[in-house]
């Protein structure tokens, strides 16, 4: 059950995501008129890879830093993080290194929780309770992301 407040939140999140993502798409379209590969900061990425990154990044930005998973995505994909890691050396990498957290494992949770940790951004260092909460939020946002991308694809092909 989703309460009314949560629906309002999810609507504004959906719109925030759609705006950012669409403007990223248009930016891509105007930037390079010819489709295909483009060299970015030394790494070659296809446009579909850039679109995928823009989608995850836009959703994380729409969520903000309220959630551990969105913070993890932002630090991994954000352009500031990329510039940081290239120019500076040890000092910033030290802050980006994962902090060692003592997790209290519950017996029986180990097997599937491990796979879940790998799927949810930032999941590696969470305790099991946070992991489950973050997973629920992550899933709703992912589903929204997919719906918006689907709608865009449907509309663009008309």
């Amino acid at each position, binding site marked *: 059950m989703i309460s009314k407040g949560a629906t309002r939140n999810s609507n504004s999140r959906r719109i925030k995501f759609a*705006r950012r993502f*669409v403007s990223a798409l248009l930016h891509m379209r105007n930037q390079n008129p010819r489709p295909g590969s483009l060299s970015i900061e030394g790494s070659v990425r296809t446009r*579909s890879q850039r679109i995928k990154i823009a989608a995850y990044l836009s959703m994380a930005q729409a969520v903000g830093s309220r959630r551990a998973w969105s913070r993890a995505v932002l630090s991994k994909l954000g352009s500031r993080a990329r510039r940081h890691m290239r120019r500076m050396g040890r000092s910033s990498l030290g802050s980006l290194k994962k902090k060692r957290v003592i997790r209290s494992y519950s017996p029986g*949770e180990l097997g599937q929780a491990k796979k879940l940790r790998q799927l949810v951004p930032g999941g590696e260092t969470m305790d*099991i309770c946070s992991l*489950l909460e973050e997973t629920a939020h992550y*899933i709703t946002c992912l589903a929204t992301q997919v719906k918006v991308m689907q709608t865009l694809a449907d509309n663009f092909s*008309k």
Partner: protein
Amino acid sequence: MSSRRSRQSGTSRITDDQIIELVSKLRQFVPEIRNRRSDKVPASKVLQETCNYIRSLHREVDDLSQRLSQLLATIDADSEEASIIRSLIAQ
């Protein structure tokens, strides 16, 4: 005071009840198991289905990204405005 401990939920030990509650809450978000009776779906199954669901969502994002990358070249100035508005309104 250890900053690690303060980051965990209030108690120093996470109780089984807390986990059970969160797992059952998680069920609502996974379409596969949303409607099944809670006593018939063990926690391990919930976690497994959750992983499968996340992976399938990731695959959909991949497919849609490829589709959008092909379509991007074809959209023109007029239709994109309407598409954007339509997608923003769409439920």
